């Protein structure tokens, strides 16, 4: 539902005339400092938040203070010590509904993500590696799935099979949302296929599947991971949307179900903000966490995208200049030598080097 936040497809070397392979600029690439995925602050924040969600997906139903279906005596009550997130029109505890709902959300999201990622890898890598007619037909297939609006399709399919439940929802979302990943993987496989080491493996008669599994797939890990995370974001929003408009799982709780009841019972008109705000925030934080993980992967794949870091620097004359493309900052505009080279006194044509301090070699 949101625009896929990954921009990996746009930085794939060799895709379009714009992107030049990094290898073409060895000088610049070598000057970049290496950095690790884990040390990326964005990715780490995302992983920690995601971990909290996963924890609640597991323990949610046990730690929930109430049965989410149990009716209470306080109807549409604002948050209190008894009901942290208030109650619904039937006196149900919203906090418990959120906790219990986490499991369904995460399960459907991850399951759909897994299904879509497997399909994306199968279709994308096959198309990219085999080329020819395979490529043409598989690319056309993924483009068709990309262009057809996914959510309306998911809605009509789910509505057609009303008794499906969570499994069916996950299956339908997974089967309809693989195309973006497949497209990106195809492009990357295509460029990997032309690399020397892959050509070499082919020349030595390695079997196609061996090359794909041992030479191609390891190099696609980051992109597959990013595609998976992106699909999970899409799956979670789709699932919640389905529940919100009242199709899909009618029996189990998820955050969309809460919003469905809030909307249909006029929570807005009654000013019952606690009814719909927590569910929305839960979705938003989960989505943000997943997006952050994806930014981390993006920056890992393409270090150029990292925030510029220090963009303002002080020159020796005390002025502050900004680092920007096209105007390299000049820190010190004097002709005094920086490093201490050592002149050799000429005595009888033979060099007599003088021992110098360590500073000379900084």
């Amino acid at each position, binding site marked *: 539902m949101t625009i896929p936040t990954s921009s990996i497809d746009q930085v794939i070397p060799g895709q379009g005339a714009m992107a030049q392979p990094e290898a073409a600029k060895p000088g610049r690439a070598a*000057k970049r400092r290496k950095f690790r995925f884990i040390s990326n602050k964005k990715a780490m924040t995302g992983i920690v938040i995601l971990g909290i969600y996963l924890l609640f997906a597991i323990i949610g139903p046990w730690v929930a203070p109430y049965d989410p279906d149990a009716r209470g005596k306080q109807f549409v009550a604002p948050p209190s010590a008894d009901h942290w997130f208030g109650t619904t029109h039937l006196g149900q505890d919203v906090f418990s509904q959120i906790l219990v709902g986490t499991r369904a959300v995460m399960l459907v999201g991850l399951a759909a993500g897994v299904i879509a990622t497997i399909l994306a890898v199968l279709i994308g890598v096959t198309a990219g590696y085999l080329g020819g007619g395979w490529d043409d037909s598989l690319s056309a297939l993924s483009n068709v799935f990309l262009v057809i609006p996914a959510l309306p399709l998911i809605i009509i399919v789910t509505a057609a099979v009303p008794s499906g439940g969570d499994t069916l929802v996950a299956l339908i979302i997974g089967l309809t949302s693989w195309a973006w990943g497949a497209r990106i993987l195809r492009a990357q496989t295509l460029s990997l296929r032309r690399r020397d080491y892959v050509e070499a493996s082919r020349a030595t008669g390695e079997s196609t599947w061996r090359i794909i599994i041992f030479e191609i797939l390891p190099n696609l890990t980051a992109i597959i991971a990013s595609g998976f995370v992106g699909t999970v974001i899409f799956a979670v929003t789709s699932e919640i949307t389905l529940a919100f408009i009242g199709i899909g799982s009618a029996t189990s709780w998820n955050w969309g179900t809460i919003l469905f009841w809030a909307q249909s019972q006029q929570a807005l008109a009654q000013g019952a903000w606690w009814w719909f705000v927590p569910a929305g925030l839960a979705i938003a934080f989960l989505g943000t966490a997943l997006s952050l993980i994806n930014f981390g992967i993006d920056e890992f794949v393409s270090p150029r995208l990292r925030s510029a870091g220090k963009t303002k620097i002080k020159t020796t004359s005390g002025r502050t200049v900004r680092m920007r493309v096209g105007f390299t900052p000049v*820190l*010190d505009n004097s002709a005094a030598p920086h490093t201490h080279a050592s002149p*050799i006194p000429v005595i009888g044509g033979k*060099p007599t080097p003088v021992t110098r301090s360590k500073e000379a070699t900084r």
Partner: protein
Amino acid sequence: MSEPVLEIKNLNVDYGLGDQAVHAVRDVNLTLHRGEVLGLAGESGSGKSTLAYGLTRLLAPPGVVSGGEVIYHPEKGEPYDVLGLTDKQLQAFRWAETAIVFQGAMNSLNPVHKISTQLTDVLAAHEPQMSAHSRNARAREMLKLVGISADRMDAYPHQLSGGMRQRVMIGMALILQPQVVIMDEPTTALDVVMQRQILGQLIELRERLGFSVIFITHDLSLLVEFSNRIAIMYGGRIVEEAQANSLYRDSLHPYSKGLLSSFPALRGPRRELAGIPGSPPDLKAMPTGCSFHPRCPRAFEPCAGNIPVLGNPDTPDGANRTVACWLHPVKQPVG
């Protein structure tokens, strides 16, 4: 020797800031004289391109010029320091005084604009009083000068061959009649025949128009053939500088010798071919002393401890050349 047009004084260029800075160009002193072709050679990573981009302040972040002066002598008027110009002044200086022909012939042209647009937008920026008609006429003239027919004016870069694109770039570099043209590996992407054709044409144009050239390449054989003077860079420093023929016949620095023996002689007696053992230094972890000493066949006791200074050696033609090597005592340091 004729008067200088560009004097680089103790230029230092870093990537990054503070402790993490990588010193890519260190204390480079170099003078380009009016009308000459100055060759700049070295392996990749020696800092030769960084030097070229640094002196016109074109390095992308995190590149910074950490010190030095680049004194430019205009045809008329007082010399001034390019590094001290404001952004506006620098924009006016660029291309009008110093033009650059870049490494990637393929990617130097904007793929979405016509050749004519890319030729005339220079004129529009630098000579705003010029009419659109005369801008077009000028662009046509430049294309003719580099041997491209005027009907290619409306072509897009992808419709031209690599050689043609590089010709367009040369024509573009000369369109404002700059005094200095910096050529950064201008022919690397082209085949050998095309290389010589384009370089030959350029030398001829230089004689006609009288600009000076800084010619940067890793291919020393090209420099020996096409330049007047050659400077050799290693590990961000200039290690030797001399007239092209004296460097070719009688190089002093072991690194220059190594470079020269890595290609076959074009004329004259046969020499033994030998590469240089080892690989170029990692700028992040430079060897102490002379940065070439780990690879140098003639390294001796002082080399590891101290950095040799660039200066005139004590040889018969010592006044006309410089070298930075402990093997060759320096009479007079440069800079």
